[in-house]
């Protein structure tokens, strides 16, 4: 009896060894790059600009987009309303600034984050309705309101990753994280 179970176990082992010959279970459907793109409806924008789409927007155009889609929650010029303020001083924050006054110009460390988040999750109740041009434009407007870029500077895949945010100078990696993952470098 014991011997019988031994052989059953042995053959089960042999079978799973066969299935796992490549260290894989062969579960899941392979996707083509085309299919991946169809699934990836909100592509991530990396800090180096990888993932930014074609298109462009100016501060003037952005003012109109902002008034239509953003001002209701964030105030007429980004000063905050029912929801988070987008513009606040000083640039960057100090440890005396109350966290209600953390905003894009004084706390956000990467300009690419603004494009990624706006296209990903805004407007709050109807995310995804803005075109890429509209997102570039409203990003330009918000950066201008925060004193980060000039009025004449359009935002696109080339210009946006080059924008320096004041709070980036304050950003450091948590030292205990650095110790555990020595290879991490903040962009």
């Amino acid at each position, binding site marked *: 009896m014991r011997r019988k179970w031994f052989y059953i176990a042995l053959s089960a082992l042999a079978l799973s060894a066969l299935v796992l010959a490549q260290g894989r279970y062969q579960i899941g*459907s392979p996707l083509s790059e085309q299919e991946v793109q169809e699934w990836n409806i909100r592509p991530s924008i990396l800090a180096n600009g990888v993932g930014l789409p074609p298109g462009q927007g100016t501060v003037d155009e952005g003012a109109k987009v902002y008034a239509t889609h953003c001002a209701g929650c964030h105030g007429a010029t980004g000063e905050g309303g029912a929801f988070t303020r987008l513009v606040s001083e000083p640039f960057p924050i100090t*440890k005396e600034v109350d966290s209600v006054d953390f905003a894009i110009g004084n706390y956000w460390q990467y300009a690419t984050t603004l494009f990624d988040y706006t296209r990903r999750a805004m407007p709050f109740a109807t995310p995804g309705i803005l075109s890429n041009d509209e997102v570039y434009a409203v990003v330009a407007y918000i950066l201008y309101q925060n004193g980060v870029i000039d009025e004449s500077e359009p935002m696109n895949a080339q210009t946006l990753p080059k924008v320096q945010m004041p709070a980036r100078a304050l950003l450091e990696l948590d030292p205990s994280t650095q110790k555990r993952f020595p290879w991490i470098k903040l962009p």
Partner: protein
Amino acid sequence: MNRRKLLQLLGKGVAAGAFVKLSPGLAQGKIPQGATDTMKILGPTLREYGERSEFEKDVIRYISPNLRSRHTGADFAPLEKLEGIITPSSLHFERHHGGVPNVNPADYRLVIHGMVERPLMFTLQDLKRFPSVTRTYFIECAGNGQNGYRNPPDMTLTATRSRGLVSNSSWTGVPLSILLKEAGIKEGARWLIPEGQDAAAYTRSLPLDKALDDVLVAYAQNGEAIRPEQGYPVRLVVPGWEGSIQVKWLRRIQVADTPVMSKDETSEYTDVMADGKIWAFTWVMDPESIITYPSGLQQIQRGFHEIRGLAWSGHGRIRRVEISLDGGKTWKRANLEPAPDALSVVRFKYNWVWDGKETVIMSRAWDEKGNTQPTQEEFFAKWARNNRYHYNAIQAWRIGADGKVVNGDKTLAGAPAQLGVVGRGGCGGES
């Protein structure tokens, strides 16, 4: 008295007679009117899905009246009304960034792509076919304890509002390492960018090393499907790390060589330090503990009490929990029951007879790496007063001579104006 003598006494009717004699007034008032009613009529029938007693309906999550939206923000698990170590799924704290999506499992897919040999798509059934693991892990919002940043302290604080953004569940799922091996990681890949299927399309960056270590792609919570507000049908469980990286409604994992620096790892979930710097990727949750009984806004009487509370650490197993009954002057070791699991909430207990004198009680946890909780002063020597996350200083409860329990934290000198009244941003759960 041995068993034989006891039986003899019982046989003579001594014990029974004494009991009756000692309870002359029982029929007149000590027996509640309704106590035997249920024995006279048939009770309700079998039912397909159980509900708790109608008399337990006040055990609910705390939702702050100051929230600007219930689509984003957080609510608290009612810690002082719970026992044991598992948080009932219905009472697990919530934190959302764009409401709770209603995901149909028939339409659910998880895609792994980017720096992989084979981009793969999994159905829910696919995920359930893989070898599974079940582990008990806590999940804690990085903003848990945010009320500790208030100065002067909030005298209406309860254990729930002090530390209720932590919950503990049994999670079942497939190790993410298995799925990554299935897709084949390419040379040079270092990061994963998981994305949620909510209206915020929530994303974060997770180091590949951690994913290969112990991260779960979970589809069950406490034995049944994950609750919608906890990520139905599939979420990441990242043991010991802040809740915000444990992406819910998981639909996509991009394998990359850099982090994404998404909004929720830059403008939120970064920490302002006492030197004015901002720290990124403060992932691991430091040790914490909270006495849930007696705790804020409760009332106790003289006599025996089992002090009860919860402790946990993202660094590993809780090694011991200490109780102070004299405002932190001396510390005694509490009992841990049941035996602690690593990266799970543990329950601590301490037998105490209260003499009716005003006192301040505290707890502090120690984990297996030797980490413990700071005092308020020690905490603010490292973290800025205007920071929002990772508050883990020792919580004190003051018990008055009248038995009323209130927040026993100190008002600290040199602090800025009262923080936390309006507009803190969703993570702390209060506004």
